[in-house]
């Protein structure tokens, strides 16, 4: 994880970038277990819109979140290219529905900038930092915040 005190400054980090709600996000590669094609899920009653349901991942029941909806960017629309990123956070395994996965990003630790001092406390929680790639800004997702804040839209 992105612990400031860990390792030399020039440590390389690898991220997988993806887009959700027309924004670029990324997750550190070690948190990602696999990337799957979207398959229909079993809906859960009495859950917020960003909880799509549960999926069978080789016998484990994992919840699937709509990352875009979770960040308040609207529901992800049905698309062939939609994929589910299966990520592990501690003992918990979850799936994140995103629009598409783009590339693997290899950066030095110094390239990760702190989240700009934006107004929304929730947004600062959910984003660990930003990496600039060309003209784009890639947001580093804080998986813990995605999990912890179960009250629906984070941003």
């Amino acid at each position: 994880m992105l612990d400031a005190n860990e390792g030399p400054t020039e440590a390389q980090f690898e991220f997988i970038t993806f887009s959700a709600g027309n924004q670029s996000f990324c997750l550190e590669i070690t948190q990602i277990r696999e990337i799957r094609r979207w398959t229909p899920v079993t809906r859960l009653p009495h859950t917020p819109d960003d909880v799509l349901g549960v999926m069978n991942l080789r016998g484990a029941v994992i919840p699937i979140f709509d990352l875009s909806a979770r960040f308040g960017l609207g529901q992800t629309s049905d698309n062939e290219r939609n994929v589910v990123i299966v990520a592990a956070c501690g003992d918990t395994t979850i799936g994140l529905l995103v629009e598409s996965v783009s590339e693997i990003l290899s950066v030095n630790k110094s390239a990760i900038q702190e989240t700009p001092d934006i107004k929304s406390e929730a947004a600062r929680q959910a984003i660990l930092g930003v990496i600039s790639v060309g003209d784009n800004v890639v947001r580093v997702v804080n998986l813990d915040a995605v999990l912890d804040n179960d009250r629906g839209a984070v941003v």
Partner: protein
Amino acid sequence: MSRNSIRDTFFEECEELLEALVEGLSAMEENTGDMEVVNAVFRAVHSIKGGAGAFGLDRLVAFAHAFETVMDKVRSHDLEVDEALMRLFHRSGDQLADLVEAARDEREPDSETESTILKELEAYLGESDKQDDFSFDALSLDFEAAPMSIEPAEPALRRFELRFRPTAALYANGHEPLLLFDALAELGTLEVTADLSELPEFDAFDPNDAVLSWQLTLDTAEDEMVLHEVFEFVESLCDLDIRVSGQSPEQQPEPEVEDSTAETVTSLAPSGIEAALPQTTQDTVEDARPATAPVQGANEPRGPRPTLRVDLDRVDRLINTVGELIINQAMISQRIEELELPAVSHLTNELEAYKLLARDIQEGVMAIRAQPVKPLFQRMSRIVREASEATGKKAKLVTEGDSTEVDKTVIERLADPLTHMVRNAVDHGLESPDRRTEIGKEPAGTIRLSASHRSGSVFIEIIDDGAGLDRKRIFEKAVEKGLIAPDAELSDQDIDNLLFLPGFSTASAVSNLSGRGVGMDVVRNAVAALGGRVSISSLPGAGTTFTIVLPLTLAVMDGFVISVSDQTMVIPISSIIETIRPNRRDLHQIGTDGRVIAVRGAYVPIVDVAGNLGLASSSNDIGGGVLLLVGTEAQGLAALRVDAIHDQRQVVIKSLESNYGAIPGVSAATILGDGKIALILDPDEVVKLHPAAPVLFTTPQPRTELRHA
């Protein structure tokens, strides 16, 4: 092996020893004169002391020493066991358990009770004993080889007679009898006599022949198995005859009779307790007190049933994998069915066999997790003791069916509710001794704990012979607490069930025991979390019975596969009383949206499952679908309306909480034959859900919710 794991092993063994101690103490209570039991207790304490010494746990050693010394006086008939001493022994046992626990967790034990008990123990010792500097032999705890058996500290010597006659093949294979004898000599005192009778004339001597045999006499503390181990590699190459000839080397045994008794002792030896008893004592005890014989017979022989300690994680992984296997098998079955093969196809036969095998494996794996309730019940004896001391009531605990096996998790999670209920039974259930004498009952009340398997469930009952529930008082209390209306008309059963309401506590005065903030509702929740239920029955003046019914296993369940709205779900069969295809005649509308069905004269409210789960109801036709009649704790009978019942099958329960959180109305999930996930409904919760409150329930409950304090 690190020091820590040796330590762990010591504490694991302590647990077993403490168990034996508690068992022995209660046996002592039954039958104070039984020296074998006294010895067993002594040995347990002594072994703990020995082990503790090896780890430098001085306080534990000091306490165990005092305990042991008093015990020793009982053993040598210097001290009569009376009721007061028995109580002290019990408390000492409890204290010892506390000290062991404190040592394990490396915290400071409660020194106050310790010193009180120590003082009381010392009071039983004469001046001379007090000064007696204790020394013990640092035991060789054989952790590596056999973690189950702590070697008895003062093992009884037994005499083995061995006849050893090697064949020529033994020599041909390069074995040397002398080395074997050396190995035997290490076990004890060995006498060897060579039998030269078969030695031929020198002229006839064939150097390739084996003509020598030996007669050996070995006095050792080891059991026969160890002797056999010495001969492990040569047993097939020789004539070997090992017999136990007696306990004390000086005794010349009568061969036939003595042999058989000695055999029994040998077989018990690895339990480390019984073996220590000199044969002579046992004989005299038996002769002098023939009455003890049946008691001893009832003691199931705790013989050397080989066991294996396995990391629980590994077992759980195995169980998980087997669960996968079952799902996979179901998937294959479904796929093959879809192929619509001819009915007599070999494939279907093989498939059927595969199914049976998978079930067998599953049952076998489940059995690994099953454990007898005995340790759990034994812990309760302490609770009864403490509770009766705190309340000044006399109570004794009787347990039945302690060998009933229940899933380990159930045992663990049942400890708290059971403790609470047993405490309650003493505190609230039993009358004071005076009152009991007054009404012609024995002054000491009886708390009966029983476990049994009945029709696929585990029944655990807590029965007291106290006053029974004071229904009037309960009713008043419930009114007082605003739980029910003063003019509510309730049946006896309903009143009894008021106990389970949150915020209910009958004790008007907060005694030492009650008022810990744990009510019967917590008990019920804990049991419900295990998929079970609690019920009460009570007879005024005769006592109260609490019955806990639990599923045999937590991993699989029989369920109906149903469809609700457009989703496939599973509902536990155990909760369903009957299924009804409603007849329009029996359906009635009450108010704007309340519907009831007449079932044999009673009106049962209909609960629309889809509506309560916030799913779109597929049909607004009140006559459609199937009704499942369920009994709920909160609201009595209810009829759940679902669209259809498809199948009845065993499903593997998958927790939703491990990756998400609790969802109202849903207890878990399972994976169906097609690989899709189906939710398992919790009928009780479904009924409770109000259809009008969909989004308020959205926050997943914290995962620890079910683990109550």
